[in-house]
């Protein structure tokens, strides 16, 4: 290999691997999750055919009635030793909203503001380090839809 070729190769590698900021980017690793139009589809795209079990250890905090569907604050908490946490809902065109990868020694106490175009259900799935899926859901009333269609 001559020097020019070698340098060219080096350059190509640099271009192919842009700043590696991600550990797990679920949009790249599991693109189908974000296209799924039902909660079930999204969950199986994320976690395969594993069964969900309802758990009171998974906590969802939100106001029961959201006056503005464009800004709905939701808090997700759990003590379960978790690998990842997914937040989904069943009224927008697609179901998945956000998937957190829980870092080593991570605390699952996440607050985020989401959009919902109508009243419906938010569902949280916690993937435990034991491989099981724990879930909880909450009915939400949305007074003014915030998804602009």
């Amino acid at each position, binding site marked *: 290999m001559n020097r020019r070729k070698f340098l060219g190769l080096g350059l190509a590698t640099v271009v192919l691997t842009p*700043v590696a*900021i*991600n*550990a*797990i*980017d*679920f*949009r790249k690793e599991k693109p189908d999750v*974000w296209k799924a139009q039902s909660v079930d589809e999204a969950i199986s795209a994320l976690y395969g055919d594993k069964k969900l079990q309802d758990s009171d250890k998974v906590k969802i905090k939100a106001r029961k009635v959201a006056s503005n569907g*464009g*800004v*709905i*604050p939701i*808090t997700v908490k759990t003590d379960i030793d978790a690998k990842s946490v997914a937040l989904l*809902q069943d009224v*927008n*065109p*697609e179901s*998945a*909203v*956000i*998937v*957190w*990868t829980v*870092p*080593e*020694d*991570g*605390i699952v*106490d*996440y*607050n*985020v*503001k*989401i*959009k*919902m175009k109508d009243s419906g259900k938010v569902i949280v799935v916690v993937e435990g380090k034991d491989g099981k899926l724990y879930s909880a859901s909450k009915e939400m009333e949305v007074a003014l839809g*915030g*998804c*602009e*269609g």
Partner: protein
Amino acid sequence: MGKMKIKAKLEGDIVKANVMIKHPMLTYNAAKKKGKEANFITYIVGKVGDKIVYEASTSQFLSENPLLRFKFKGAKKGDKLTITWRDLKGKTVTKSKKIK
């Protein structure tokens, strides 16, 4: 677009972080109506040094100018919390803030 505000405060051994990102979070439907291209944040990561303390893959359904709150352990006062996000168009923004 692209501005980001970070607040991080140590309480006991837990850091409480608030991150506000200025971003339209334009959904596909809203973009169609406005005749624009959809664009929203797709990935957010928070680090202290090399250690990841927060990581999320996100969809168009976060609110406009998303606000994220989270907690983590293992950092001390003066450490830097660095947040990086990327959107659908590939724009990447990184900002750091000292933990108070």
